[in-house]
């Protein structure tokens, strides 16, 4: 019963064994290597040992001959007697089996196998039709155990399951549509809906672990209708935006059927079963029942500056809000650096130490350590504090208040900057401590402005906490390709998905090293290139901006249009000036000519030249003033000036 866009060759009458029984339609799909059947056969060939391929819910056994011809011992099972009779009539082995039977399925399967080894059990577009897929998975686990007890190896499990998280379905559901159809992704007889997460959870619960995949990919599924639905318009803003979000969540948006192979995990035991169904979390900021901390703080440590790490940790240990965990990230694989950081952590009181982990992480880029930290974090929110930066006692508390007021949004406080320098050799009292040069200076705005953040970053990472759901649901990470500005890019991408809640409180202090400015300042080309990269990645999809942006953009566009007007006026002014210069040259020519011949006109010409020269000087002077001032915002005087110059020329030429 493949859920491809194609129509079945034949659909027999639906079976029903009486009231309360669920009808399972029997489809007669043809085999094709491009469809799920072909993909499943590939997986069998790749992963199964020789022996029986047990095709449960085989219907008319579309894969029967193909598998038999490839050397497998095909055994089909279905509860539809007509279908089984058809299978048997084609010289294939077929049995009448009801997969929905509550007990004894594993025993029945063992019985019909008659001691033969089993290479694979295949379930092709079948489990979505079952009222209780876990009963079948449990029976297969039992079968596997029975075979093992008998000295036979465990079969692989190969399945094809339609994907209800295909983009077409997602886009239409946003538009309020859920179109059940006679067959396909939303076949009206489907009793179960599967996403990859559910499959992994259900199969994992019975000890089945994926070992191979050959999914059927369809850019457009059978659900790609109506074609003029606003959210299905390719190149349409909503379509493309939804697609960019859907693509961020996982790689499955064009997968029509998950065609996958599974092996039993040898160490699995029935006691490993856990509920596969997600428990809805309260729609408040309180979060899941599991006791995860509110905040995970990621602190990068070089392992070479223990006193600076100690200061950062002191700030964290002193937080009024204690519902935080700290992950100290030590990049590289130097055991000394790890030990040094661990020693600093251990020097704190045990209650705090219990909330701190020290982890050695990849060091290939500045972002790599933080990305590793994002994976290690458990908190509902994640914040960042590098050694060297300091925070006030209400840093975490303000984040919590922000998250309470606007759950799921990025929370932003304000970071001030204080300038420090390294102590000179003779400044012995300082030890390894930097000399502070200024009080914390306000440098970054009190509120987050999404549009201006496209041009400039005024939000250091230490002043934000972002919901970890961005990491788990959308796989948000820092761009490890960016040598600089990776935090800026990360922040903007996060902010443009969930929005920003401002606390307005100054809670962090960034230390800026004054005496090292020249050495540590990143060349502007590098910044420009990082900025361009960030913009081009944002430009790749439609952009979502917070409410109020239309007015702000209109204002900015107005400014830009004034600037364009000014540019046109300036060009006109230049042309007028050039015309005046030409007129002057012409007059001089005439004069020279006149001096040679008709001296009577000389005096009048000289007068005109003098006039022209004076006005040309005037015009030059006016032009300089115009260009040097903000005068361009007012274009009327500029036009008057052009007229004046042109008028002069005409006067002079007349």
């Amino acid at each position, binding site marked *: 019963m493949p859920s491809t866009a194609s129509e079945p060759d034949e659909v027999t009458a639906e079976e029903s064994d009486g009231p309360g029984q669920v009808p399972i339609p029997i489809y007669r799909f043809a085999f094709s290597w491009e469809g799920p059947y072909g993909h499943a056969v590939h997986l069998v060939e790749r992963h199964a040992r020789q022996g029986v391929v047990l095709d449960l819910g085989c219907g008319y056994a579309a894969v029967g001959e193909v598998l038999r011809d490839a050397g497998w011992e095909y055994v089909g099972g279905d509860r539809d007697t007509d279908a089984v009779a058809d299978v048997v009539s084609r010289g294939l082995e077929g049995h009448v089996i009801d997969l929905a039977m509550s007990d004894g399925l594993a025993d029945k399967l063992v019985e019909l196998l008659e001691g033969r080894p089993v290479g694979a059990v295949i379930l092709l577009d079948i489990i979505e039709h079952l009222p209780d897929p876990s009963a079948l998975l449990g029976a297969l686990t039992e079968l596997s155990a029975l075979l093992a007890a008998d000295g036979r190896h465990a079969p692989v499990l190969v399945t094809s399951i339609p994907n209800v998280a295909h983009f077409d379905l997602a886009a239409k559901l946003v538009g309020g549509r859920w179109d059940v159809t006679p067959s396909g992704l939303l076949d009206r007889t489907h009793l179960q809906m599967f996403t990859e997460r559910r499959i992994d959870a259900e199969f994992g619960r019975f000890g089945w672990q994926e070992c191979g995949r050959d999914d059927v990919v369809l850019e457009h599924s059978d659900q790609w209708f109506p074609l003029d639905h606003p959210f299905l318009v390719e190149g349409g803003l909503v379509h493309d935006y939804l697609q960019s979000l859907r693509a961020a969540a996982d790689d499955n948006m064009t997968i029509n059927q998950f065609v996958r192979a599974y092996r039993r995990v040898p160490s699995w035991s029935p006691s490993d079963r856990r509920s596969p169904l997600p428990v809805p979390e309260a729609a408040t900021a309180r979060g899941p029942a599991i006791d995860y901390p509110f905040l995970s703080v990621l602190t990068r440590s070089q392992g070479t500056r223990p006193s600076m790490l100690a200061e950062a940790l002191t700030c964290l240990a002193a937080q009024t809000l204690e519902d935080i965990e700290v992950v100290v990230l030590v990049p590289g694989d130097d055991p000394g650096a790890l030990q040094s950081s661990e020693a600093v952590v251990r020097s704190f009181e045990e*209650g705090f130490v219990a909330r701190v982990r020290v982890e050695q992480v990849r060091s290939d880029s500045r972002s790599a350590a933080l990305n590793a930290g994002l994976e290690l974090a458990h908190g509902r929110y994640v914040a960042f504090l590098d050694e060297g930066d300091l925070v006030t006692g209400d840093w975490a508390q303000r984040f919590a208040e922000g998250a309470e007021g606007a759950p799921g949004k990025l929370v932003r406080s304000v970071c001030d900057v204080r300038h420090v320098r390294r102590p000179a050799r003779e400044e012995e009292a300082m030890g390894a401590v930097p000399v502070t040069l200024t009080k914390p200076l306000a440098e970054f705005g009190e509120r987050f402005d999404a549009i201006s953040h496209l041009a400039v970053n005024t939000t250091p990472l230490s002043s934000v906490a972002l919901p970890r759901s961005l990491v788990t649901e959308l796989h948000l990470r820092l761009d490890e390709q960016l040598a600089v500005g990776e935090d800026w890019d990360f922040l903007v991408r996060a902010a443009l998905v969930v929005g920003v809640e401002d606390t307005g409180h*100054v809670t962090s202090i960034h230390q800026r090293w004054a005496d090292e400015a020249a050495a540590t300042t990143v060349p502007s080309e590098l910044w420009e290139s990082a900025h361009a990269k960030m913009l081009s990645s944002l430009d790749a999809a439609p952009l979502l901006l917070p409410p109020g942006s239309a007015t702000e953009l209109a204002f900015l566009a107005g400014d830009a249009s004034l600037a364009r007007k000014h540019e046109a006026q300036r060009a006109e002014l230049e042309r007028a000036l050039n015309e005046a210069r030409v007129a002057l040259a012409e007059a001089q020519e005439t004069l020279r000519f006149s001096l040679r011949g008709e001296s009577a006109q000389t005096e009048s010409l000289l007068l005109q030249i003098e006039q022209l020269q004076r006005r040309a000087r005037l015009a030059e002077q006016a032009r300089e003033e115009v260009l040097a001032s903000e005068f361009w915002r007012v274009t009327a005087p500029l036009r008057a000036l052009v007229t004046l110059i042109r008028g002069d020329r005409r006067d002079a030429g007349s």
Partner: protein
Amino acid sequence: MAMAVRVQTVRYGGDAPDLLRMLRSVAAAAHGFEDHGSAPELTMAIGDCGGPEGPDATVDEEVLTEAHEILAKAGVSLDYVAFMTNTGHGAGQNRLAERAADGHRPGGDGDVLVMLNPDTYLSPNCLATLVGVLDADVGIAEARQIPLEHPKPFSPVTGDTPWASGCLMALRSSVFESLGGFEPAFFLHGDDVDLSWRARLRGLRVRHVPEAVVFHDKRLTETGFPAPSAQEEYQAALARLLLAHRAERRDVIASSLGWLEVHGSELQREAATEFLRRHSEEELPATYREALEVSPEEVVSVACFHEGEYAEHRF
């Protein structure tokens, strides 16, 4: 006999979790001495002034029990006393120090007193580092505050500083005793400046120790400095007049009174009235010249009044 270190704090209000957090940091700081040779005998003394609800709003029994447990685990003993009156900072510290001298903990020659604000958190090596710099010359050692560093000056070469903040300062018991403790005329502000000046007038150094770090729970405002409360404004105004009186700086007294009259808040003007009352009723403390038998030149060289502060600030 091992050196004894007595950390003293005067409590007035505040939340129990904050107090316990501070005590946990003291317990951890006790281990900091392990890297500095012999571990001292450590006592944590808390003088309880109650809170805004009244002098009997002292710490709950359960909190005290927990405090005991936290400290005992690190081998730190607790000396808790409910004053049942709001003594103010300096007088409270004096009382706690007297308890030590009275036998709660013998005030031996090498013994050290550490004055600590309750709204703090010690970095682990803070106490050991601070106590380690005390010698025959250094009378008072002061920790560096984070996240907001105090703007008063110090020498990055010698660490010398005009005065030490009472947020976290260490001094030998003998020095504290010979200086006569804090001047009780100061209630909340200025007693640390006064003690530091007297130490310097006695020829002792006051040293800032950048490597000894204490977190002081100050919240930032847009000025880059914490906002003072109304009560702090009153106490600061009164402290300035008292310090100027002790240093016999009539010019400072006159200009301060003038400024308070014109620009001062109601509470600040009340401070001026209180100063004048004490003056007329001869309740003001002795001048430095009288108390320490020093020359006017010596007083001038130590007692600095600069733009409302007691030193020219760095920023």
